[in-house]
């Protein structure tokens, strides 16, 4: 069941009399509206329920083990008379998520597309497994994949995409559908363009700033995550060594008469203290995952900036081409040679052309100029469109980022508070025990 959607495209604000601030505000308000009405989430519950292992043959016909994730969907208004129907479900593996994302990147180049969780765990602290088969890793990935789908489903533009909808609802034949859209060719040319080296003369300053920001964000968040992992490692060590107190106190209590009871119970508290760190660090891992998502988002930001550069570059090339053609025409008409050209040199050496030859050339040029002007107009519109739609999404992203990260920082503070409270409790208890010694 297709989601009942509003306008298929983003409403383009054509009124240029507004100031840029008002323009931004209008965009924001429209975004909120659209989100309310077209968000797939309003119509559908989506969750990534479980994970399972499968075996099969890969592309080079070798046996492999991979994990599949269960995607469950259920219409929101399906809850009638208190009876919740069973959700529809299908299985997808990580590579299919990747395909979906690539398709979205190519099809909506002006959107900052939510990132996928990393393929392999990279920034880990030593107790945390980096093994793809490890149940904790799989669990955290499950959560991240669900988050990815929810991001797409709540995106005003992406949520209406048919391929996305089929990804959620039809297991078989989805891959073929994706390729049928001709996405592969677009993907290839996009890849080429991304890697090409070209210089843009007049990029929109905002995109240049955004590119710098995304580079900075990537650097600082990477560093933060690395140091955090080291801190977690050390904290783990501190807590766990206290477990030794538990053991020795218990042994020591056996040879003491007066102190025995106090020591024994103090020992139990030390054991509890040592054990408490596992949950504490597991929770912190969720915080790290939240930061990681935004670390990976920087790649999507850069992609949008790049696309803008490409569009702008093409516009500049078209404009340059037009200018040169016009110049050539002028030279032909006035007979002056302002720019060096082989023709000019040869005509100097071998004499002027005939009037008919000149007339023919002029006609060709005029044709080219007309085409060129069309091209420039097209490219201009394309570029403007892109800038507008991209910037709308970028503002949406910025707001989302600020909200999410603020919440993440608050939850981090709450985690620290919880850890401190646990510490107070354990050591207060231990203090009582020591007092009874």
């Amino acid at each position: 069941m297709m989601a009942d959607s509003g306008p298929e495209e983003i409403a383009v604000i054509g009124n240029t009399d507004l100031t840029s601030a008002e323009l931004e505000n209008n965009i924001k308000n429209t975004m909120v509206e659209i989100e309310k009405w077209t968000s797939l989430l309003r119509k559908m519950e989506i969750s990534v329920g479980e994970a399972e292992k499968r075996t099969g043959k890969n592309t080079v016909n070798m046996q492999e083990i991979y994990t599949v994730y269960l995607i469950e969907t259920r219409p929101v208004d399906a809850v009638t008379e208190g009876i919740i129907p069973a959700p529809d479900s299908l299985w997808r593996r990580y590579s299919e998520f990747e395909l979906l994302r690539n398709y979205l990147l190519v099809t909506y180049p002006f959107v900052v597309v939510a990132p996928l969780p990393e393929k392999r765990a990279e920034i880990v602290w030593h107790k945390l497994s980096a093994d793809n088969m490890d149940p904790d890793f799989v669990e955290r990935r499950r959560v991240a994949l669900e988050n990815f789908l929810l991001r797409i489903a709540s995106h005003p533009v992406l949520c209406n995409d048919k391929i996305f909808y089929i990804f959620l609802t039809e297991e078989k034949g989805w891959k073929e559908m994706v390729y049928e859209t001709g996405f592969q060719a677009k993907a290839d040319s996009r890849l080429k363009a991304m890697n090409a080296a070209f210089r843009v003369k007049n990029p929109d300053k905002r995109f240049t700033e955004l590119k710098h920001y995304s580079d900075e964000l990537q650097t600082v968040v990477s560093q933060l995550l690395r140091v955090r992992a080291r801190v977690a490692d050390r904290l783990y060590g501190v807590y766990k060594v206290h477990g030794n107190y538990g053991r020795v106190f218990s042994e020591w209590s056996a040879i003491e008469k007066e102190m025995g009871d106090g020591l024994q119970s103090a020992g139990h508290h030390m054991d509890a203290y040592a054990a408490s760190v596992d949950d504490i660090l597991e929770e912190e891992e969720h915080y790290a995952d939240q930061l990681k998502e935004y670390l990976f988002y920087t790649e999507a930001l850069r992609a949008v900036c790049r696309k803008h550069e490409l569009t702008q570059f093409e516009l500049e090339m078209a404009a340059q081409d037009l200018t040169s053609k016009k110049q050539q025409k002028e030279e032909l008409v006035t007979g002056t040679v302002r720019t060096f050209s082989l023709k000019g040199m040869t005509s100097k050496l071998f004499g002027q052309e005939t009037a008919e030859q000149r007339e023919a050339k002029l006609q060709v040029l005029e044709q080219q100029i007309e085409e060129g002007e069309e091209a420039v107009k097209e490219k201009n519109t394309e570029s403007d469109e892109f800038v507008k739609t991209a910037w709308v999404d970028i503002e949406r992203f910025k707001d989302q980022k600020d909200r999410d990260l603020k919440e993440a920082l608050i939850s981090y503070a709450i985690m620290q508070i919880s850890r401190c409270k646990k510490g107070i409790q354990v050591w207060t208890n231990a203090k009582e025990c020591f007092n009874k010694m």
Partner: protein
Amino acid sequence: MSRTIDAVVSPTQTNTIPADISGQMLDLDEDDDLEVFSKDSTLADGNMFNASMQTSPGSMVNQCKFEEDEEGDSKDIFITVDNPESHVTAIETFITYRVLTKTTRSEFDNSEYEVRRRYQDFLWLKGKLEEAHSTLIVHPLPEKFVVKGMVERFNGDFIATRRKALHKFLNRIADHPILSCSEDFKVFLSAQAWELTTYKKQGPGFLSRMGETVRAVANSVRGVKNRPEEFTAIQEYVEDFSNKISCLDKVTQRIVKEQKEYLEELKEYGPTYTLWSGSEEELAEQLKGVAGCIERCCKETEEQVGHLSDTLVPVLHEYVLCAETLKAVLRRRDNIQAEFEAKNETLATKKVDRDAESSDLGFVWGSLLGKNPEEARHQRQERLDGEIEELKEEIDKLEDRVEWANNALKGDWGRWQRSMRGDLKSAFFSTAEKNVDYYEKCLAVWETFLLSQRTEPSEETDRDNTP
């Protein structure tokens, strides 16, 4: 009842009043139930203070009773060890410490003494005390060199740690009812440097000390045969205790190490948030807030580690050394008993000898020397009788010695156990208290931050509500 090791000694919890030799009662202001020792007149002539001679066990047992610890301000001697100074001579460089004594005890001529002592002097004192009271438990001295970590003797931390340990050492002796009466102790506290050097030279010479050592080794090789059950029990306990306390010492040092490494990483963590805040607008404040919280937690962590190093680590280390002292004391007691047992065996052998039929050999020799066989046998009997009498006298003395040694040890054992319990309890209690304090301070830091965040959302909700 926690003890703090300050520069100035505060009244401690153990209070058995040492004997007042001059016959004057001590000033018992507050507590009526403080014990006063009965005095033996033999003390008046200062026998007790000639520590280089083994005191008569009988008189000792009469003098000092080991009573339960009493509360109260009855300390009459206050000692501080401070002010380490470095001295350079042609041959060596060494550190001296100022030892300041304030006392009202009448065996001291003055009420205040200020002397400088070096580590060697402390070692000498300990040796003398152990020599004179081989089965009393003398508090351990800090080691000559610290094996792990610091190699340099003149490192500031090393000197500070040593100073505190030396301070504790002297105060423990001052608290001890018997040891604090030692003449060597008095000289240590009061004599000027040259006086001490002269005094040290007195006493049994090198050869006689060697003789003692040889005897001790011989005794320990022989081994004790009938050790009383209670001392075996104590020995087993000491073995176990030694293991446990060494473990605790290691565990605690490991915790300090881990905590320090954690602190190092934490110091780098806060700045990453500050760095990030430079790239953000809306988030900058929150990020700086988090950075600030982490920074403040760093300070608290540093303090907590410091407390651990200053309070728990030295105490555990002391008791590791104590365990070794206890083992040595038990060995010495065993040796005393072994000597007694050996003498008994010799006596038995001699008796057998005397009661035996006259040996043919003796008869033959006697006849060779032209002696009357009857006379020879009679002479031999007399000789053996004399030897047996001598032996019996010696054995009596040794028996007394064993009894006294056992009583001394038993008494001191109870005392040691009490102070061990007190010291370890208060050290662990203090550590736990500091940890609670640490977490409470960190909690406050993060709660303040959270509070500052929660008040801002009022702006956010307004924005959401505008259509």
